[in-house]
């Protein structure tokens, strides 16, 4: 049957195509952390042909983003890690030799045992991100170490989780429970949805555009989202808190706030009112360069949409070191407009708990990530940068770390302050990296383990947190290529060698999933057919029930506009604008962000995605280009305020989309490992130039947007003798 009417024509080629038999296997995507459920299509010869979103997945609405569609390249990339590697010295030069799994795993187990003996299991840290992390977390906890951290906290969303937890008592979480689909007004503070391809948000923003929602984007750069916005506020970088204080001022002074909601659900309104009374739009104008009438107009637009308004919490928020306070401003604005728990604002999310596969209790470590981050009492997860600091021996280091296992995170790209990171890695007694690709980080390891890609393995059941709970399974579509192995297998093998076999009471992870699915009233058989199972809500309605009392999980049971907790800890109970350094003469602020077709550094070598964009460009305002005589396409090098010069050149893009006081590039390029045949030496690695961080005193986040670069038109490496 043909939904478009009869079509008589069928040529031979097409016939072949139509009759080709594909097998489909359920999976969920691992090209970023959103975890969209999908089908992997393999042909009769066992080649992966395509990956298509699972139409029943309420987490991705059946559509993948370009990275998910290009996930086939993760599997096909011929530069993948192929066998375990062990560091050796040949002719005085450090290099890697291929090793068997047996040898590599034995070595890891013996090193881990030694370190445990000498310093305790806590001295081995796990730095992880994504699915493989889950299996290793289990291994580490069984072993007695909870020294675990990931860059997705202190380098990413930590500050907003802290800010929202302080205000609402619960963090935002992933995915953000923003009701974008039904919103009347979406406010994006730097969040660059559309370049940031977090899938369902992009889709819902598109729905919002269709519904005629007002979009307000605050961004010094003309982002894609800005181009879709009714109001683009071209803010001076690092001044967002001033803008938000002025918005609060207008909303309160003009009486535009949701009085009933504020009365019923919040505390500290009067303190807030006093606090913002002097932060007029005129005051903010001098700081943000945004005209007072623009500030008033946008505040009124938000208020008139209230409560169907979202001031988006953002996601990568480690910008200037006062990020928790900026997140607090966002949280407070949402509260004033009554959007938390309201249709078109923030819904109450829900997920379903996947039962834990039976295994013995974990031992109690003597210290863990919490102790390491004790300076930052509000932190709710391990702070990677603090774990790194503890790996550098010093007298007053109470938590000496001696070994790392790194899995699914390319810390050499995601962690700033390269000098410190390299020093730490240098001091370690042992370092294992489990990755799928010969990324830069693998070059620092003593043992490199090749994990197979997500298309070739089982992983944990994905339980998504959305309007309705859902689960998805990941089933291997093909056998692991080369001599790569699934993460669960690696965890089990190391565990057994460490005498932790009881914790890995299965031969194949399939058994674990099957058991869990049975507990949840389904089976692997069924899941192989449907891929995704949706459940109904059990926690109550999606939005606040206005007729019932609602108890927020804060100390006061209310939304804390004024934070007594912060006050007690010695921080500002209400957000304040503080001035941040500005680029000196001849320097430009280094701004960075996402390209829709790439995920950080992980996709730069993916053949399909590299084809779309093979390097990053340096966005330069035409005014700056004129002064420096730069042309689009010209190669330049960058040097930052600490005299750090980029390894590689980057091609200039002269564009009005960027301010004259900053330059912009997409994060994740400039790879230094030659084994990445497509990505090596292409573009600049922004992280290399982020040698100065502004640490958030509240939760330990590493603010990375305070680095300044100058532009070199001559190759600075030319004269260096090698």
């Amino acid at each position: 049957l043909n939904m478009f009417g009869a079509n008589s024509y069928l040529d031979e080629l097409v016939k072949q195509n139509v009759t080709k038999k594909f097998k489909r296997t359920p999976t969920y995507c691992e090209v970023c952390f959103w975890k969209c459920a999908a089908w992997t299509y393999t042909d009769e010869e066992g080649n992966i042909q395509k990956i298509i979103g699972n139409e029943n997945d309420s987490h991705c609405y059946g559509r993948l983003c370009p990275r998910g569609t290009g996930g086939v390249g993760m599997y096909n990339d011929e530069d993948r890690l192929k066998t375990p590697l062990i560091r050796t010295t040949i002719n005085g030069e450090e290099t890697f030799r291929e090793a068997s799994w047996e040898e590599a795993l034995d070595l890891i187990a013996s090193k881990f045992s030694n370190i445990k003996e000498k310093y305790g299991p806590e001295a081995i840290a796990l730095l992880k991100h994504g699915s493989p992390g889950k299996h290793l977390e289990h291994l580490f906890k069984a072993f007695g170490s909870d020294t675990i951290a990931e860059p997705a906290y202190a380098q990413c969303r930590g500050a907003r989780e802290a800010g929202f937890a302080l205000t609402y008592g619960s963090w935002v979480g992933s995915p953000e429970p923003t009701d974008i689909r039904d919103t009347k007004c979406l406010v994006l503070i730097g969040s660059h949805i559309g370049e940031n391809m977090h899938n369902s948000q992009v889709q819902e923003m598109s729905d919002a555009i269709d519904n005629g929602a007002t979009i307000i984007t605050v961004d010094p750069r003309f982002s894609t989202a800005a181009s879709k916005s009714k109001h683009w506020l071209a803010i001076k970088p690092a001044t967002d808190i001033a803008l938000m204080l002025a918005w609060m001022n207008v909303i309160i002074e003009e009486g535009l706030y949701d009085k009933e909601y504020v009365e019923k659900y919040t505390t500290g309104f009067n303190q807030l009112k006093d606090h913002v009374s002097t932060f007029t739009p005129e005051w903010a104008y001098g700081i943000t360069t945004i005209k007072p009438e623009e500030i008033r107009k946008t505040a009124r637009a938000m208020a008139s949409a209230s409560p169907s308004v979202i001031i988006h919490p953002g996601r990568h928020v480690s910008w200037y070191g006062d990020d928790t306070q900026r997140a607090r401003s966002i949280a407070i604005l949402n509260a004033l407009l009554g959007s938390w728990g309201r249709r078109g604002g923030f819904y109450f999310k829900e997920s379903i708990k996947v039962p834990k596969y039976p295994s013995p209790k974990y031992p109690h470590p003597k210290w863990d990530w919490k102790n390491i981050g004790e300076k930052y009492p509000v932190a709710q997860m391990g702070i990677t940068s603090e774990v790194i600091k503890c790996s550098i021996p010093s007298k007053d280091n109470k938590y000496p770390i001696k070994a790392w296992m790194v899995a699914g995170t390319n810390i050499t790209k995601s962690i700033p302050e390269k000098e410190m990171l390299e020093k730490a890695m240098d001091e370690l007694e042992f370092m294992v990296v489990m990755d799928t690709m010969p990324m830069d980080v693998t070059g620092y390891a003593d043992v490199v383990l090749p994990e197979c890609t997500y298309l070739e393995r089982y992983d944990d059941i994905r339980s998504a947190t959305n309007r309705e709970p859902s689960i998805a399974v990941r089933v291997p579509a093909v056998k692991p290529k080369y001599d790569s192995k699934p993460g669960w297998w690696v965890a089990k093998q190391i565990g057994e060698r460490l005498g932790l076999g009881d914790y890995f009471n299965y031969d194949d992870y399939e058994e674990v999933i099957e058991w869990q699915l049975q507990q949840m009233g389904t089976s692997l058989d069924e899941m192989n057919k449907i891929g995704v199972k949706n459940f109904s809500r059990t926690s109550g309605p999606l939005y606040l029930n206005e007729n019932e009392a609602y108890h927020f999980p804060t100390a006061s049971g209310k939304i804390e506009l004024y934070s007594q907790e912060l006050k007690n800890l010695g921080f500002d109970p209400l957000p304040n604008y503080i001035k941040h350094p500005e680029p000196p003469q001849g320097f430009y602020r280094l701004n960075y962000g996402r390209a829709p077709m790439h995920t950080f550094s992980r996709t730069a070598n993916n053949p399909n995605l590299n084809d779309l964009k093979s390097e990053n460009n340096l966005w330069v305002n035409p005014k700056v280009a004129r002064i420096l005589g730069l042309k689009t396409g010209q190669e330049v090098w960058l040097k930052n305020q600490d005299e750090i010069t980029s390894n590689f050149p980057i091609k200039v893009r002269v564009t009005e989309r960027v301010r004259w006081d900053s330059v912009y590039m997409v994060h994740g390029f400039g790879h230094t490992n030659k084994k990445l045949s497509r990505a090596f030496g292409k573009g600049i690695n922004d992280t290399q130039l982020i040698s100065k961080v502004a640490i958030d005193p509240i939760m330990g986040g590493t603010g990375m947007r305070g680095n300044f670069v100058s532009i070199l038109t001559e190759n600075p490496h030319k004269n260096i003798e090698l």
Partner: protein
Amino acid sequence: MRYAMVIDTLKCVGCSDCVVACQTENNVPIGYCRDWITETVNGAYPSIELELKSERCNHCDNAPCVRCCPTGASHQLDNGIVLVTADECIGCGACIESCPYDARYQHPDGYVDKCTFCHHRLEKGQLPACVSVCPTKCMYFGDLDDPNSEVSQLLKNRKHKTLAPEAGTKPQVYYLI
């Protein structure tokens, strides 16, 4: 029956999902493409306009590529779709030169290739691959001869344009603006 594509530039974010999806659906070799994204920026900071567009063969009503093809390899179906039959194509390149949109390319196997409106999927009642993946759902596909189809309605109710209409090819990919 007159197939046409309508793309809403107000929603497209230039993510290129349509480009990868076409590659994996149609076995377009790495290094080649049947569709592509353009970005047009106008104005001066801070009053700027940005247009992102997904482009491909326009399946022109007045298709010069079909007219100039010496073998008939390039041909147009009754439903308006312009196709190339690989084993009739001699690779003379005349059609490439004739297309004002540069929508065709030489496949490494020698013949000329381009967007087919995923005609093999239409046969099965599916939408073109690019349309079916687009995360912003900014692409629409359907029959312009049917006044009630989504595409007809969109063109009736919204401001739109086609690319290089002055080339006289009567393109059938429309952009809502």
